[in-house]
C-alpha cells in the first residue's frame, strides 16, 4: 500500500509539473530564423515592413533580382511590431537577415555594442556617390561614435498635424498656430459634435508624439538630449512636467475622441476618424499620408486634407521649426552574413537602392525620399503640395529629434510608453511619471 501511495504522489506531481509546463514553453518562444531561401542558398536575405512602402521595396528588389541574378536578394515582409521583436531575437541567435531594417537610435547602438552589424564607413569612403546622395541631417542618424553603421533607405517621416478642411470650414475655424489657439478650438468642435483630435491610444506610440512635440516646443531639443544621454533626473526637467500637465489638461477638456485608448493605430482606425469627419485633427507620422492616399483617395485628391506643424507654446524655448519623427528607416548589414551575402547587399545599397525608378516609386506612393536634388521630381507629382511641404519641413528644421521610443534603450522605451499611457488615462500625475522614469535611467 505504501509504495502505491508514493507512486500516486509521484504521478500527481508529474501531472502538476506538466500542467505548469504550458507556461514555460512561453519563455522559449519567439525565436525562428528566416524561412527557406528561394533564390539560391547564398543569396542575401532582407526583412521589410508591411505598409505604405511595401510595394515600392518589393518592386526595387524584384527589379534588382532580374537584373542581377548573381547577387539576388530574398525579401520577406513583417508587420511593424512583430518585426521589431522577431529581428532582435533572430539577430541574437545568429539567424538574422543580411539586411537589418532599423530606425537608428538606441536599438542600433545595442546591435553595434554586440558586434552584430558591420561598420560601413569604409564602404562610404570608397563610394563617395553614396554618401553624397543623402540629406546630411538624415545620414547622421546612422552614425555611432563617428562610424556609420546604418544607411537611410526610404523616406523622411516627420510628425505632422493633419486636419480635415471640410470640418474646419463647417465650424469656421483656422489651423491652430499656438497651443492656446489649439485649446480654444476644443470647445468649438465639441459644440459641433465633432471630436477635436483623433488618437490611436491603444497602440501607445501615437501618445508619444504629443509628449515629444510639447517637450520640444517648451524646452527645446536639449531636454530630450539630456534624457537620451542618461543624465540623472533628466525626466524631472520642468519642460517634461509642463508638457505632461498640458496633455492632461487637453484630456480633461475632452480634446481626444471618446474611447481613444480603444483605438488602434495599426488598423488605421485613427486616420479613418479624420477622413470620415468624425474628428477634426490628428497628430501622426508623415507615413499616414501614404495610407490615406490609398484608403481615402477622394478625400486626399480633392484637397480636403490639411496639414501644418505642431503649434508653438507661448514662452517656450524650442524653435517652432524643429521637427520630431523618424528621419528615415535604415539598412544595416549583418556582421554574421557570409561574404557573398555582404557583397550582394552592398552592391544593392550602391546601385539598386535609390535608383531613378526607386526614387520615383517612393514619390508616387506619397513619400519623400531622403536624397538631395529631387525638388523637380516632387514638383511634378500629383501630391506635390504635401511632398514639398514635408521636404521643406525636414530640410529646414534646425533640429530633427528621433522618435523617443527608438532613440532610448528598449527597456526605457517600454516603461515610457506604459507610463505615458497612464498619463493619458489620468492614472498617474506628471510628478509620478518623472519619478518612475528617472528610476529607469541607465537601463
Amino acid at each position, binding site marked *: 500500500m505504501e*509504495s*502505491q501511495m508514493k*507512486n*500516486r504522489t*509521484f504521478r*500527481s*506531481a*508529474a*501531472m*502538476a*509539473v*506538466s*500542467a*505548469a*509546463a*504550458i*507556461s*514555460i*514553453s*512561453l*519563455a*522559449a518562444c*519567439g525565436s525562428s530564423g528566416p524561412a527557406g531561401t528561394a533564390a539560391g542558398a547564398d543569396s542575401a536575405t532582407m526583412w521589410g515592413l508591411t505598409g505604405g512602402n511595401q510595394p515600392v521595396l518589393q518592386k526595387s528588389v524584384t527589379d534588382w533580382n532580374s537584373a542581377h541574378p548573381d547577387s539576388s536578394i530574398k525579401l520577406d515582409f513583417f508587420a511593424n511590431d512583430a518585426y521589431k*521583436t522577431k529581428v*532582435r*531575437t533572430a*539577430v*541574437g541567435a545568429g539567424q538574422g537577415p543580411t539586411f537589418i531594417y532599423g530606425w537608428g537610435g538606441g536599438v542600433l547602438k*545595442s*546591435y553595434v*555594442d*554586440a558586434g*552584430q552589424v558591420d561598420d560601413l564607413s569604409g564602404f562610404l569612403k570608397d563610394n563617395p556617390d553614396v554618401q553624397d546622395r543623402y540629406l546630411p541631417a538624415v545620414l547622421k542618424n546612422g552614425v555611432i561614435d563617428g562610424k556609420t553603421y546604418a544607411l537611410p533607405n526610404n523616406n523622411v517621416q516627420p510628425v505632422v498635424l493633419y486636419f480635415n478642411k471640410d470640418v474646419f470650414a463647417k465650424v469656421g475655424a483656422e489651423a491652430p498656430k499656438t497651443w492656446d489657439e489649439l485649446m480654444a478650438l476644443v470647445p468649438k468642435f465639441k459644440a459641433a459634435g465633432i471630436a477635436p483630435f483623433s488618437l490611436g*491610444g*491603444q497602440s*501607445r506610440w501615437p501618445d508619444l508624439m504629443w509628449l515629444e512635440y510639447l517637450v520640444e516646443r517648451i524646452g527645446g531639443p536639449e531636454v530630450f538630449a539630456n534624457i537620451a544621454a542618461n543624465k540623472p533626473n533628466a525626466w524631472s526637467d520642468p519642460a517634461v512636467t509642463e508638457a505632461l500637465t498640458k496633455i492632461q489638461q487637453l484630456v480633461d477638456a475632452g480634446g481626444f*475622441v*471618446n*474611447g*481613444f*485608448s*480603444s*483605438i*488602434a493605430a495599426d*488598423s488605421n*482606425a485613427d486616420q*479613418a*476618424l479624420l477622413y470620415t469627419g*468624425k474628428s477634426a485633427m490628428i497628430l501622426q507620422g508623415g507615413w499616414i499620408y501614404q495610407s490615406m492616399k490609398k484608403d481615402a483617395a477622394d478625400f486626399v485628391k480633392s484637397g480636403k486634407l490639411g496639414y501644418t506643424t505642431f503649434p508653438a507654446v507661448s514662452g517656450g524655448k524650442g524653435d517652432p521649426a524643429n521637427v520630431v519623427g523618424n528621419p528615415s528607416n535604415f539598412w544595416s548589414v549583418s556582421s554574421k552574413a557570409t561574404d557573398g551575402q555582404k557583397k550582394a547587399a552592398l552592391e544593392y545599397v550602391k546601385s539598386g537602392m535609390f535608383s531613378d525608378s526607386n526614387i520615383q516609386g517612393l514619390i508616387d506612393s506619397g513619400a519623400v525620399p531622403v536624397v538631395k536634388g529631387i525638388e523637380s521630381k516632387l514638383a511634378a507629382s500629383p501630391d506635390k503640395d504635401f511632398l514639398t511641404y514635408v521636404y521643406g519641413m525636414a530640410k529646414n528644421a534646425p533640429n530633427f529629434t528621433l522618435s523617443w521610443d527608438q532613440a532610448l534603450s*528598449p*527597456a526605457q*522605451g*517600454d*516603461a515610457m510608453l*506604459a507610463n505615458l*499611457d*497612464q498619463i493619458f*488615462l489620468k*492614472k498617474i500625475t506628471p510628478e509620478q511619471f518623472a519619478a518612475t522614469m528617472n528610476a529607469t535611467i541607465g*537601463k
Partner: protein
Amino acid sequence: MSTTSGSSRRALQQGPSGWLAAPALAFFLLFAIIPLIGVLFLSFTSWDGLGEIKLDGLSSWTTVLTDPVTGNALLVTAKIMFFSFIVQAPISLLLGVFTAGGQKYRAALAVLYFVPLLLSSAAVAIAFKALLDPNFGLGAGLGLPFLAQDWLGDSDLVLFVVVFVIAWQFVPFHTLIYQGGVRQIPGSLYEAAQIDGAGRIQQFFNITLPQLKYTIITSSTLMVVGSLAYFDLVFVLTGGGPGYATRLLPLHMYLTGFKANDMGAASALGVILVVIGVALALLLQRLGGKNRNASQLEGA
C-alpha cells in the same frame, strides 16, 4: 513506474507498465525540464538578448521583486483566474449536461458550441478587437449605442472584457469535457432515482454532480493553471493595456523579455510563473482527496 517485471497480480494492482510513460517523459524532459533549467540559470544573469550572457547574482530577482509592476501583474492574473473560473465553470457544466442528452437538436447545438474552439486565439482576439472598436465596431455598425462603450480603453472595464473573450473561447472546451463526463454516468443510477421519485433537479444535485467530481477537478485544474498561460489572446487584444490594466504575469514576462529585452528579469518572472503553476496544480489535486483514484461506481 515500479512494475516493469513481477507477477501479473501485481501488474493488475498497479496498472499498466510504467514504460508507457517513457515517450511522454522524454518529450517532457526535452521541452520542459531542460528549458526550465535554462530559465533558472538565466534568472541569475543579465542579458539583453544580443550580447554576452553575464552572471549577475540576484540582481534580476531584486529588480523583479521590488518592481511594483510585478505585484500588479500578479494581482491582475489572480483576478483573471478568479473571474474566469467563476464565469466558465458553471456555464460549461450546465452546457455539458445539456449537450450530453441524446436528442438530435442537442447534438446539432453541441457542434455549434464547439466552433470557437476551432479558431486560433490570435484570430479571436483580432475579431473581437474590431467588433469592440467604439467608433467602427459592433455598436456603430448595428446602431446600438450601449454596445459602443470604451471596452478596451477603460481600465476598470477591460478586465471583464478580457474575461468574457477568454470564456467565449474556452467554454466549449470545458463543455466537451463535461459532456464526456456526463455520458459516462450509468443510466441505471437515474432509473433507480426515478423509481425513488427524485425529480430532475434532485437528480442533478444528487447523481450528476457527485459523479462528475473528478471531471470537475480536471476541468478546474485546466482552467486555473491554464489562466497562467493566457497570453496570445490578451497580447493581441489589449497588449496588456491600457496602462498596466491587463498586463498578466505571462504577458509581463514576454514584454520584459522581448520588448524591454531584459532576459534576466523575464527568466525570473518565468520561474515565479512555474512555481505558482505547480503549487496550484498540486493544491487542486489535493482537493480531490486521498482516495481519488478509487472507483465511484462500486455497486452500480
